[in-house]
């Protein structure tokens, strides 16, 4: 026990003496949380629209003013012809163009149907479908207004009235959804990189040779090496939660001790991976690359940016091995839904088994290598 304390003391001394490490631990998380939370959003706030109004009538102007009035649109230009408007799209100066044909108003008044052309830059598929949906919503709305205006006898424009409400995030606030996930990333990155590099650092400097001839037992060394990063990562989580709560006003409905309890187990999985990486790598550079590779896969598949449910079956199956996705899910449940332990006990037990498996695998490998 005393031996472990001596190792801990040394690790913390080294950690806090490292001039590049401290900013990494304290400043980068704040940056990451602040910047990522505002930028990692699916919402498209300012779709740049080019309008070709060949009708120049009251109705066409009404439609255009509805686009202008929307928070999602900026009408960047009015073009004379479709070809001119298409140039904007080609040059990347606009995201969407709408062509209102001649006789638009006349056809409406004559109760014959009329057409509109809507073209969307679809290089980014999901952005395109969003922009298209925004445009549809505006046009539909305009359509209903026309029906009421033209046929006063019709009072119900929608045969089925839909009353929708959004639970757990009533205002569909993107921040609310992203912050719990980003917190998980933060803790994961810190724990994985620090633990993955630390043992390798001793290998690279040759101090591990000295450690190996001392009576330090392997388990003492491993505990002494992993515990500091476990503590740093837990601190990091609390730090991030405080920023989320007080800076972003992200709701925290569930229990904090419960979240910390899950994090405690989750971090064992991450540290296990870190230790494993350090048994495979001989230099800090190798360790960085392996950790980075693992993390990129874990993060992209985690459900942070894209819903896991929309991945192909094999990917969803593979994702059962992704610890990050478990914790993001649990974290969102606790923070946003106020879920209790019984709501995610299955996920938690999986993490427990995972932690035991990864840690024993890496300890076994560490014993073989060192």
């Amino acid at each position, binding site marked *: 026990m*005393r*031996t472990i*304390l*001596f*190792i801990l*003391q*040394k690790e913390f*001394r*080294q950690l806090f*003496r*490292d001039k590049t490490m401290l900013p990494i631990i304290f400043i980068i998380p704040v940056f990451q949380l602040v910047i990522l939370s505002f930028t990692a959003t699916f919402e498209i706030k300012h779709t740049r629209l080019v309008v070709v109004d060949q009708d120049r009538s009251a109705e066409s102007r009404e439609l255009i003013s509805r686009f202008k009035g929307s928070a999602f649109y900026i009408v960047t230009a009015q073009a004379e012809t479709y070809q001119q408007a298409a140039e904007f799209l080609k040059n990347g100066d606009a995201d969407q163009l709408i062509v209102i044909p001649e006789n638009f108003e006349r056809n409406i008044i004559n109760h014959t149907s009329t057409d509109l052309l809507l073209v969307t830059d679809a290089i980014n598929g999901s952005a395109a479908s969003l922009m298209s949906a925004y445009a549809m919503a505006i046009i539909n709305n305009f359509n209903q207004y026309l029906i009421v205006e033209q046929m006063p006898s019709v009072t119900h424009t929608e045969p089925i009235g839909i009353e929708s409400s959004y639970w757990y995030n009533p205002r569909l606030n993107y921040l609310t959804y992203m912050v719990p996930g980003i917190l998980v990333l933060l803790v994961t990155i810190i724990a994985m990189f620090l633990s993955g590099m630390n043992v390798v650092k001793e290998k690279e*400097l*040759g*101090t591990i*040779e*000295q450690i*190996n*001839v*001392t*009576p*330090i*037992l392997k388990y003492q060394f491993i505990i002494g090496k992993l515990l500091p990063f476990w503590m740093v990562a837990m601190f990091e989580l609390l730090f991030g939660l405080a920023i989320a709560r007080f800076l972003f006003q992200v709701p925290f409905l569930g229990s904090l001790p419960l979240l910390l309890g899950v994090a405690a187990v989750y971090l064992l999985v991450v540290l296990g991976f870190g230790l494993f990486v350090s048994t495979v790598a001989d230099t800090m550079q190798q360790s960085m690359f392996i950790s980075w590779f693992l993390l990129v896969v874990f993060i992209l598949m985690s459900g942070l940016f894209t819903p896991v449910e929309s991945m192909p079956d094999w990917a969803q199956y593979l994702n059962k091995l992704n610890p990050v996705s478990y914790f993001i899910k649990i974290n969102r449940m606790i923070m946003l839904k106020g879920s209790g332990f019984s709501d995610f006990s299955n996920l938690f037990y999986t993490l427990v088994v995972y932690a035991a498996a990864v840690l024993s695998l890496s300890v076994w490998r560490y014993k073989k290598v060192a």
Partner: protein
Amino acid sequence: MTKADTVIVVKDLVKKFGSFVANDHLNFEVKRGEIFGFLGANGAGKTTAIKILCGLQSPTSGDIKVAGFNVYTQTNKIKQHIGYMSQKFSLYEDLTVSENFRFYGGIYGLSNKLIRERTKTLLQRLDLEHAANKVLRDIPLGWKQKLAFSVAVMHNPEVVFLDEPTGGVDPITRRQFWELIYEEANRGTTIFVTTHYMDEAEYCQRVSIMVDGRIEALDSPKKLKETYQAASMNEVFIRLARAQKNTE
């Protein structure tokens, strides 16, 4: 435990890696307080033998005891009773001198009081008390080497293994380093040292020379020079190493 006069006993040490024989029936004993030079060309099998003696590797066969403990079953006991300093500098560069002493003293189980006392005595001996709170990376290599040696003997081990301790150090510092070794040996600590400097071999009380996994010669430098009719240890070494090359 009564302290035996023989600290290292090696009988028929064999270490094989597959079909390669790194140590081929080594036999030697090292006495308490002796300075034992363990010489050999690169790749002769010295490092393997040292690793076995330090409890880092198991031998393939042989009867080996270090500080009275068996290398097969009591490696952790062995580690408690030996000190080790390698050619690669192995104190922590980002810790201060006294923090390094504290860490190594702590993991050998020394009490806080003893750590403070030993740190003080050892630094006094080196005349480096003023450097106690300096971070290691800021002090000259010669000092570091002496400090590494002091850390290796901090827990009063029965035997200290020095693996090319003076690599890259200037002649004056090397001279001072050997004075340290002598002092420590006079206190009863056994010194087991490997080196490529043949003038250092002359300082040893007994010297063994390994060639291709075998010990080709083992005696005091004086007797070795007589046997091989050589003027210096350098000549003895070259004659032995070359003899081997010619038979190949």
